[in-house]
């Protein structure tokens, strides 16, 4: 099983990279974009098939290391 972890800055925390990308899209005349947030994706190959256990483990990984919850939110998807 794989865990896909998406990490992004919290709403309300200024995302300078997102702003820069948004600005670049504007320069290319992509006018249909209201906002851009840049995050990162971490893909974990897990050696368990137990989804409940996997979710608990990956949540702990996010809290301890993968995300800095002072400034970042994370979302976990198991596939």
């Amino acid at each position, binding site marked *: 099983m794989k865990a896909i972890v998406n990490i992004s800055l919290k709403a309300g925390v200024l995302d*300078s990279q997102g702003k*820069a990308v948004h600005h670049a899209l504007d320069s290319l005349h992509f006018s249909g974009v209201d906002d851009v947030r840049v995050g990162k994706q971490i893909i974990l190959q897990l050696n368990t098939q137990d989804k409940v256990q996997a979710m608990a483990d990956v949540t702990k990984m996010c809290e301890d*290391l993968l995300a*800095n919850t*002072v*400034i970042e939110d994370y979302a976990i998807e198991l596939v």
Partner: protein
Amino acid sequence: MKVSILQFPGTNCEYDTQHAFEELGAQTEIVWHKSETIPANTDLLVVAGGFSYGDYLRSGAIAKFSPVMKAVHAYASNGGKVLGICNGFQVLTESGLLPGALKRNEHLHFISKHHHLQVINNDNIFLEKLNNGDVVNIPIAHHDGNYYIDAQGLKELESNNQILLKYTDQNGAIQNPNGSVESIAGVCNKEKNVFGLMPHPERAMELVLGSDDGIKMLQGFLK
């Protein structure tokens, strides 16, 4: 006076820091991150600047799990004095020893230049040789120096006098190089024994190199 200086893979300011404190008359020791203890007679523990673990994941995020960090937590919770400079500040916020976090600079550039700072609270050992309102000239060199704390956290910092320094111009007017909340350049913990700042006082020890304003800051620790 004994100053112990932490060294992680990627730390690059440990020898500057050592030189600065030795010039002030302190004994120093560089402590490799695999050490599980801190030298017994340490009066000040410095987490030096650099790029620990290549800044992978986030600046300071991996270093917080180095073996020595357990000893750092124990040392700090017993009242030991800890100073984090630049990447050291990032390590201390990631470790939870200092509040807030350091984000990518607002304009996304790595900034390396001298910058003026104003002393906001000197009721602590780090800045007691300076007066509130004093302006010092200290180099900054960082990519992730954009200090963030939420509104509630900021209130606590302000009411406990935990804001040490703010980025200003030479007259003390706010001038924010990196987007930090309230132009904050350095903070301490509530107990005032753990200090962190992005600027490099250890690089401001000789006028011939642009400024010796770092002397008064580091001297505060030398009793």
